[in-house]
């Protein structure tokens, strides 16, 4: 049975996926990987990029002796999963994504980036901002020693979003879909 890796979304953390992991653990190893700058995983002195998240996933597979894994990615985690499938096919068996937006234009990217502005988050959805700070400030990264890490992560993530796509359709929070990609 192939091991299964679960990847959370932007501004999420490993605890979000724990209830799903418990539902999937019957007969296979399920590994929840927390991405850099999220939850208790510190930021490092580098930009947040899908590529660097993917490198961290491969490093984790190496550490755990996992030669090949299936990967599920929620939202931004789906980009990491798809990137891994495209660049590390020897290590990735199958990929499933949920709520991973696939149609990007510069306008959509600008709007999504704006939604990650910590000032906007605090102003428009203060309860969400408080929840994020509780989720991400357990161990603040050194670059954010004077700023809640959720703020640093949300700002940095704005640069990790896809910006090139030929399609214009959008409705980022309308519905969720599961897309499963081939071996």
């Amino acid at each position, binding site marked *: 049975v192939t091991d*299964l890796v679960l990847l959370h979304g932007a501004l999420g953390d490993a605890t979000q996926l724990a209830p799903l992991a418990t539902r999937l653990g019957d007969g296979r190893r399920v590994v929840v990987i927390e991405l850099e700058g999220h939850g208790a995983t510190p930021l490092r002195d580098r930009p947040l990029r899908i590529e660097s998240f993917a490198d961290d996933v491969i490093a984790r597979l190496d550490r755990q002796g996992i030669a090949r894994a299936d990967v599920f990615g929620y939202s931004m985690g789906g980009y990491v999963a798809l990137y891994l499938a495209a660049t590390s096919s020897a290590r990735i068996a199958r990929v499933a994504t949920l709520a991973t937006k*696939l149609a990007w234009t510069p306008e959509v990217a600008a709007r999504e980036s704006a939604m990650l502005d910590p000032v906007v988050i605090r102003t428009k959805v203060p309860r969400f901002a408080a929840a994020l700070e509780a989720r991400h400030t357990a161990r603040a990264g050194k670059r954010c020693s004077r700023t809640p890490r959720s703020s640093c992560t949300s700002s940095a993530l704005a640069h990790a979003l896809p910006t090139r796509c030929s399609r214009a359709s959008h409705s980022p929070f309308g519905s969720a879909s599961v897309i499963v990609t081939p071996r």
Partner: protein
Amino acid sequence: VTLEECVAAVRQLAGGELEVHPRTQHPFEKVSLDRLARSLEEFFA
């Protein structure tokens, strides 16, 4: 995430599959984990 963009993406994938979970909002906390788990179990089986 629109259905149209998902359909377009799946059509570009040899062997790709698409499953729609209707009336599901984006926040993960609002996703039906039982339904999602069933979908993933079936696909990854």
